[in-house]
C-alpha cells in the first residue's frame, strides 16, 4: 500500500537541519529504483537510506527485503506491520525508527493520541485482537529473544494467528532489528522534527519471562513445506554459498517470495568484494573464531558487535576508530550493512525455531545489565549461547595451514560414515567404495570454504550426499530422494517376535540378513535410517545434509523403521506363530 503523496505535503522532512549522518551522500540519480519505491511508500527517501548512497548495492539489498515484508499487504496489513515496527522501535529506544514509523502511521490515518497510546501500552490501546496478539508475539521476540520459545508461538496460534500471519510477524520483527541497527550504524538523522513520545510501559514486565527448558525449542516452529534446491533458484544459490540450505531459509518455505528477497539481499551484500572481503563479511554474518585475526579485523568485529548489542553507546567515534584502522568509507558502511543483515537473520532464526547457522558472536549475551541480570546460567537458550565444540576443528585447521597428513586423519575418522552414507544412497557397496575417492577429494578441494558454521562431520555428509546423488543422475538410474511421502504405510506382519532374536542366527548371518533388509528399502528411507539409526547423526544435522525439513525426515525415519521391521519379521516371529495370519492395523 503506497502513501497518498498529497498527504505528505504538510510535512517537512528534517533535511535542512544541518545535521549529517556518519557517511556522505552522493547523487544516485532520480531513477534509482529503491528510492522511487521509498518515495512511493513513505512519501520521501528516509535519511537512513540516503546515508548509504556510497554503496548503492546495499540499499538495493535492503529495499529487496523491505518491499515484500513491509510494503505488500499479505496476511498482515501495512498498518499492522508499521505498528510492530513502531512498538519495537520504542521498546528498543531507537528514536530515529520511532519517528519514522510514527509519522508513517500518521500518514496512514492514525491520530497522534492513538499512536501515543499504542507506544505507551498497546494492550490498552483498544486494538483488534489479532493486532494485539501480533504485537505481544513480536515484542517478546524483539526485546527478549533469549526467553522466546515455541510456547510463544503456540500462544499466538491459540489467539487465532495462522502460520502465514506468524511468519510475517516474525519477519517484520526481524526487519525492525535490521532498521534499528542500520539507523544507529549510519547515524541517521531524523526525517522529521523529533517528537517526544511517552516511554512504553510494557517492557517493564520482561524480567518475569521464563527461559525455555532445554530441548523445548528443537525443530522448526511453523509448517514449512519442502522446496527442492534443484527446482527453486534461491535455494540453489544458498546451497552454493553455504554448502547446504541453512535452516533459517527452510523455515520460511510457506512464502517463497521472502526467500527470493533474502537470497537477493545475501547476493548483493555478501558476494561482491569491492568493499570488505568475503571472509570479513562472513565473520560478521556467521561468527567464528577471532583468535588469529589481524588487529584491524578484530577492530572491525568489535565495532560490529558493539553496534549489534550496545546501540546506546554506539557513536561516531566507533566509525572514526575504523577509519583509523585503515578502512575506507565504503568498507565501514558495508560493515554496518552486514551487521544489520546478521541481526535480521539472527532474529529470524530465533523466531522460527531454526537451528543456529548465523551465530553472530554477540547474540548469546546482551550487554545491558538489566537484561544480563536475568540470564540464568542453566536456562539459556540452546541457540547462539554456546556453540558445540567441533572435535574436528583443530585437525581441519592443521590441513588448512598446509599439513596434508592431517587430512588423512580426517579421512580415517570419517571413512565409515562416508561409506555408509554412500551405501545408503547408492545401494551398492562396490560403487560406494568407488565414490569415496570423489567425496574426499571434493572435501579437500573445498575445505578452504569450510568456515565452521556447521560441524565438519555434517559438512562432510552434505558433500557425500551430493556426490552420491550426482552419481545416481549420471547413471540415469535416479531413485529419487525427494519424493514426497506417498501412501500411508500400514504394518501387516504384526506377530510377536521371539524374546532374543539375536540368538537365532550367527553374527555373520544376522548382519547379512539385516544388510539385505536395509538394501531393499527405497533409497529415501534407507539413507535416513543409515544416517539416523546407524550413524546416530543428530536429527537436525541429517535433515540439513539431506535438504529435508524436520517433519519430513521424521516421517521417513518412521516409515523406514516400519518397513525394515516388516522385512525382518518372518525371520524373528515366535516359532509357534509362524504360518498364522498376521494382524493388520
Amino acid at each position, binding site marked *: 500500500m503506497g502513501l497518498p503523496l498529497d498527504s505528505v505535503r504538510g510535512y517537512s522532512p528534517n533535511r535542512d537541519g544541518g545535521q549529517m549522518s556518519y557517511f556522505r551522500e552522493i547523487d544516485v540519480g532520480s531513477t534509482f529504483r529503491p528510492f522511487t519505491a521509498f518515495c512511493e511508500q513513505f512519501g520521501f527517501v528516509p535519511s537512513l537510506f540516503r546515508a548509504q548512497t556510497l554503496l548503492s548495492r546495499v540499499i538495493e539489498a535492503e529495499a529487496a527485503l523491505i518491499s515484500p515484508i513491509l510494503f505488500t499487504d499479505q496476511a498482515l496489513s501495512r498498518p499492522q506491520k508499521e505498528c510492530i515496527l513502531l512498538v519495537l522501535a520504542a521498546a528498543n529506544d531507537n528514536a530515529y525508527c520511532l519517528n519514522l514509523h510514527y509519522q508513517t502511521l500518521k500518514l496512514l490515518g492514525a491520530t497522534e493520541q492513538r499512536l501515543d497510546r499504542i507506544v505507551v501500552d498497546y494492550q490498552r490501546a483498544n486494538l483488534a485482537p489479532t493486532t494485539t496478539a501480533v504485537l505481544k508475539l513480536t515484542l517478546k521476540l524483539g526485546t527478549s529473544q533469549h526467553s522466546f520459545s515455541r510456547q510463544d508461538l503456540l500462544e499466538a496460534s491459540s489467539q487465532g494467528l495462522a502460520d502465514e500471519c506468524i511468519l510475517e510477524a516474525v519477519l517484520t520483527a526481524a526487519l525492525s532489528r535490521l532498521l534499528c541497527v542500520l539507523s544507529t550504524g549510519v547515524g541517521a538523522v531524523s526525517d522529521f522534527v523529533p517528537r517526544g513520545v511517552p516511554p512504553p510501559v510494557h517492557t517493564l514486565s520482561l524480567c518475569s519471562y521464563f527461559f525455555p527448558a532445554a530441548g523445548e525449542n528443537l525443530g522448526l516452529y511453523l509448517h514449512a513445506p519442502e522446496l527442492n534446491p534443484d527446482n527453486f533458484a534461491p535455494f540453489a544459490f544458498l546451497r552454493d554459498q553455504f554448502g547446504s540450505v541453512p535452516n533459517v531459509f527452510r523455515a520460511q518455505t510457506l512464502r517463497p517470495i521472502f526467500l527470493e528477497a533474502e537470497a537477493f539481499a545475501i547476493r548483493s551484500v555478501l558476494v561482491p568484494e569491492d568493499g570488505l572481503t568475503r571472509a570479513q563479511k562472513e565473520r560478521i554474518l556467521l561468527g567464528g573464531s577471532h583468535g588469529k585475526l589481524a588487529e584491524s579485523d578484530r577492530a572491525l568485529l568489535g565495532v560490529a558487535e558493539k553496534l549489534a548489542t550496545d546501540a546506546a553507546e554506539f557513536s561516531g567515534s566507533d566509525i572514526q576508530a575504523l577509519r583509523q584502522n585503515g578502512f575506507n568509507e565504503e568498507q565501514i558502511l558495508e560493515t554496518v550493512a552486514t551487521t544489520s543483515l546478521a541481526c535480521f537473520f539472527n532474529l529470524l532464526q530465533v523466531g522460527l525455531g531454526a537451528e543456529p547457522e548465523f551465530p553472530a558472536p554477540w547474540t548469546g549475551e546482551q550487554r545491558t545489565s538489566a537484561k544480563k541480570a536475568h540470564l540464568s546460567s542453566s536456562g539459556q537458550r540452546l541457540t547462539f549461547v554456546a556453540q558445540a565444540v567441533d572435535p574436528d576443528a583443530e585437525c581441519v585447521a592443521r590441513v588448512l595451514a598446509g599439513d596434508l597428513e592431517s*587430512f588423512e586423519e580426517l*579421512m580415517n575418522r570419517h571413512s565409515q560414515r562416508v561409506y*555408509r552414507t554412500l551405501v545408503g544412497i547408492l545401494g551398492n557397496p562396490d560403487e560406494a567404495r568407488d565414490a569415496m575417492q570423489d567425496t574426499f577429494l571434493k572435501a579437500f578441494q573445498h575445505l578452504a570454504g569450510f568456515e565452521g558454521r556447521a560441524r565438519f562431520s555434517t559438512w562432510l555428509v552434505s558433500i557425500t550426499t551430493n556426490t552420491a546423488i550426482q552419481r545416481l543422475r549420471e547413471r540415469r538410474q535416479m531413485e529419487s530422494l525427494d519424493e514426497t511421502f506417498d501412501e500411508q504405510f500400514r504394518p501387516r506382519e504384526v506377530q510377536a517376535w521371539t524374546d532374543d532374536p539375536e540368538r537365532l542366527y550367527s553374527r555373520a548371518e544376522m548382519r547379512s540378513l539385516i544388510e539385505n533388509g536395509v538394501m531393499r528399502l527405497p533409497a529415501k528411507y534407507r539413507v535416513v535410517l543409515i544416517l539416523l539409526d546407524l550413524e546416530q547423526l543428530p536429527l537436525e544435522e541429517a535433515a540439513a545434509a539431506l535438504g529435508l525439513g524436520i517433519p519430513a525426515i521424521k516421517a521417513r525415519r518412521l516409515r523406514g523403521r516400519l518397513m525394515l521391521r516388516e522385512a525382518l519379521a518372518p525371520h524373528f516371529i515366535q516359532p509357534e506363530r509362524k504360518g498364522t495370519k498376521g494382524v493388520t492395523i
Partner: protein
Amino acid sequence: MINCADFVAELDNYLDGDVAAAVRVQLEHHIAHCKTCTVLVDSTRKTLKILTENGLFDLPREAFEPIAEEIMARVRTKEK
C-alpha cells in the same frame, strides 16, 4: 482416546522418548489395551537393536587403506 493409527504415527517419537508426558500417558494407556500395538512396539524396538548393534556396512580397514592411499597421492599432487 487414541486409535492404532494415531499410535503408529507417534511410534517413532515414543521409541525415542520424544513425547510430552501427557501424550506418553495416552500412548501407554493405548498399548495397555491393544495387543497389536504392543507387538509393534516390541518388534520395532528389537529391529532398532539389531540394526544398531551388528556393525552393519562396516568398511574393513584393509579395504579402506588402498582407497586412502590413492586419495592422499592425489591430494599431494594437487598441492604441488
